[in-house]
């Protein structure tokens, strides 16, 4: 399997990358970790005329907390989050997500921002970003803009990035001590995309009632799906088994997957329900509140 011919530009800074994008317009594609783009090129499903490689842009490879957010640079690989003690201790949703993406080899190369830019409704970072209310930072010749993740993820393999724009960072709000989450995924084997998956993040008030809820689904529609109804239903509630059941049923209803070799619509919808329930139970356990029946 050999890609069609292409030109290759190795950028050494975001500015160089932007210049290359400006020069080649729609012909050009950014290459980050290459774990989605290169397989697609090898199968000749993608045929960019020019690749602009961010591999040499060292100063986009960072992970730091600033301004109440975890800031993840465009060249920060999945594995960096996976190995970061602070992320592991406090960002349970991101930690769970990072552990089930592809396999360790892919995670050493693939980037969080690249995955979000890819816009694959089966990509795991999308739902995790929705549930944690992430914000994308896009840069162009005219400057930077912040794009809330709900606006960033437009459709299958389509984001709100404009031609000539580069995603430089994604920001995940830093959870306070009363916030935890969970990512639950069913996959046929390691390295497979989700048959169904759910991202959940919950903040509890002092009275044990939900003050913030993030619930989102992977592979459940043309783009990662926020389960609004479940989030609304959870607000102000104690995490009882009844509440969990009701919220997870909303996930089943809103899930709109397509049938493929991974499963039927009916199965995937039901798994959305099962996984949201499991995610809520796991979050509750992490928050130290046993679920009451």
């Amino acid at each position, binding site marked *: *399997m*050999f890609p*069609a*011919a292409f030109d290759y530009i190795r950028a050494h800074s975001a500015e160089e990358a932007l210049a290359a994008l400006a020069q080649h317009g729609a012909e050009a594609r950014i290459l980050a970790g290459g774990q989605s783009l290169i397989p697609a090129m090898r*199968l*000749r499903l993608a045929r960019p005329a020019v690749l602009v490689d961010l591999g040499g842009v060292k100063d986009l490879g960072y992970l730091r907390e600033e301004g109440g957010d975890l800031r993840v640079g465009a060249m920060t690989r999945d594995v960096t989050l996976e190995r970061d003690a602070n992320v592991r201790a406090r960002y349970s949703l991101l930690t769970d997500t990072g552990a089930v993406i592809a*396999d360790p080899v892919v995670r050493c190369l693939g980037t969080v921002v690249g995955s979000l830019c890819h816009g694959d409704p089966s990509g795991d970072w999308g739902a995790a970003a929705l549930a944690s209310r992430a914000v994308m930072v896009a840069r162009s010749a005219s400057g930077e803009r912040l794009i809330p993740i709900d606006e960033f993820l437009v459709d299958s393999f389509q984001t709100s990035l404009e031609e000539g724009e580069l995603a430089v960072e994604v920001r995940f709000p830093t959870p306070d001590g009363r916030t935890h989450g969970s990512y639950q995924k*069913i996959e*046929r*084997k*390691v*390295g*497979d995309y989700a*048959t169904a998956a759910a991202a959940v993040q919950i903040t509890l008030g002092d009275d044990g009632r939900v003050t913030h809820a993030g619930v989102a689904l992977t592979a459940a529609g043309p783009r990662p799906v926020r389960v609004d109804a479940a989030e609304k239903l959870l607000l102000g509630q104690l995490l009882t088994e009844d509440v969990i059941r009701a919220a997870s049923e909303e996930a089943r209803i809103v899930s709109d997957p397509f049938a493929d*070799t991974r*499963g*039927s619509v009916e*199965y995937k919808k*039901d*798994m959305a329900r*099962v996984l949201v329930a499991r995610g809520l139970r796991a979050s509750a356990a992490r928050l130290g509140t046993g679920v009451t029946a």
Partner: protein
Amino acid sequence: MSIETDATNNAGPQTLTMGKGMKRKEDPRFLTGNGNYVDDMRLPGMLYMAIVHSPYPHANIKGIDKAAALAVPGVKAVITGEDLVAASLAWLPTFHGFDKQMVLAVGKVLFQHQEVAAVFAETREAARDAAELVDVDYEPLDPVISPFDSMKDEVILRDDREDKTNHIYHWDSGDRDGTQAALDDSEVVVTERIYAPRCHPAPLEPCGCVAQFDAMGRLHFWVTSQAPHVYRTAISLVTGIPEDKIRVISPDIGGGFGNKVPVYPGYVCAIVGALILKTPVKWIETRTENLTTTGFARDYHMDVTIGAKKDGTVTALKVKTVADHGAFDAAADPSKYPAGMFGVVTGSYQFPVAFAELDAYFTNKAPGGVAYRCSFRVTEASYAIERGMDILAQKLTMDPAELRRKNFVRKDQFPYDSALGFTYDSGDYEGTMDKALNQIGYAELRREQAEKRARGEYMGIGISTFTEVVGAGPSKHFDILGIKMFDSAEIRIHPTGTGIIRTGTKSQGQGHETTWAQIVAEELGLDPQNLLVEEGDTDTAPYGLGTYASRSTPVAGAALALAARRVREKARKVAAHLLEAAAEDIEWVDHKFQVMGAPSRSVTMKEVAFAAYTNPGEGNEPGLEASLYYDPPNMTFPHGAYIAVVDVDAETGEVKVRRFLAIDDCGTVINPMIVEGQVHGGLTEGFAIAFMQEIPYDEQGNNMAPNFMEYLIPTSVEAPVWETGSTVTPSPHHPIGAKGVGESPNVGSPAAFVNAVMDALAPLGVTHIDMPLTREKVWRAIRDAQAAAASD
């Protein structure tokens, strides 16, 4: 000598290397990335070939325009089916002998991804680019995907054939009327349609070749072949090139599993390209080409019916199979065995009467039906009977182990004539099963299961006590293209007591370089580290039928042991000369020659070897070598008892294989480490087949698993931890008592997994789910059963 000794192995007679886990001699080369595969071949002026594949499963070809492809820089030629017709090379005989196969499509395409044209170019990339530009004008036709539709003969797929039917052949074995009568009289009868899904051997290295004609017009053909000599003869028969003008070389092979037995269209195209372009041609498949065009396995729909008495004694077995062979009958079975060794379907049990029949049909799917790590349809047969026995146990509410015990062929009944005509050589089915039951703690597991069931949890225990038939085969029954299925060995001992061993088989990862050296070392008292094993070059290796069907140790291994004994007989005469005694007075004791009754007067084989070249003694032939062709008197019948323990998540349908124990009996064990490795690999494949692997086609005839994103290969994360063990019941007719083991785990394990899941779901009344047991299928079975229970 650097033979590794195993201090714990002090049972039985003293051996040099036999039964010891000597490290594999070939591994340093592989582990350091220095294997030499077909794709490593680079010849001056070599061109690359790429194949154009059909996007349609069934279509007329109205025309092919090569112009755009030929215009790509570096492209040298494009050939199509019509070009091959002109050279009388458009069709290829299949090994099976019932059919022929298109090399490049002529007139129409019959399966998605079928080979339509071949492009030759200076680089791989140019060949690919040009392949995309070959403009084929297709007129799509409705595809016939199911053999149950195909059998209606509403659309005749193969208008090239004289018989205007999609039916390829009928095969049967056993007593049709007697079986029906016995079933009619049986107190209990169970019947189930059991599907062995279409799967693919998917060797890590795909198929490929390099074809070169030398200045003298001789063809040198490097190819990923499990049977290089058969290829040489087949190429000669197809192309008309005299066989002496063909040299086939199988270098290191990265896994075969039956996929590298058939001759594929790409090979013929590469040879044609090398001939017309007068320069070497390389063709290496892509993963998708391997999965979509080369030999698949299984695809048997089996109606299994078992009769029994109320106490569980089986009375009769009937199996009626519909086989889907795809567009061409390219199954690589021995000529007289269109359904392979399916007759072993009576398994380990005493069926007084049995009948098996099979009808094979064409469909618009890829051709094949290869023996994927099994001795020709043995996996299908073993799966059918082991599944069937569990369905019977469930019906009788009998413990599946006890049902098996009641019906086993007993140890004292061997040689045993099965109802379908095999003579089982030896076995101890009950002993092997008991060892497995004890080792896994069967009674305790059943107690745990009862507790879990009371709590509404789904835990299952699955048993498979399979019998295989391997080592094809005796010449009176077995041939491929008329060539009898013997195998051969040649041993040359050098003056310094080292040597070279050649056989007609071809390792693809099985470890022949080690095992063969161990056999010869044991027979001759030499160091296995200094016995070089060479296979795969038809110019040097003796003629043999190759490695598949677990035949290497039963056939070539026997040839080796007997050839070594021939060497020993020659050596005895030289030893007699050295010891100044009569040859009749020389005995072979403790791996050296000694004068009978005078143990102090002895010589080693090493000393004899030197003398064979320097001082052979008057009247003795100098040198020390022998070759031997071995025609096995019977097949060998390895067996095993496998037990799987699973937990099923009723909410998601997920199955966790908590434990898996495999007790194998492959007769004499040559190298237990290699045997264990083979068992681990085969079990992992069996696990994949049971839970995740299938080549499904949608209704439009699209192949739905054309790459490893869809055709799933389990990793160490998914695969259970394998527990293994063995019992040893030597084959009475094999010179060293060995039976072959490479395939047992693939043959025996699928039923153990499925039986375990069905055992877990038994309280719900679920009797059978077809493989692969995906989460959804398990989930659906549970949900449907619960819904049915609720509506009662």
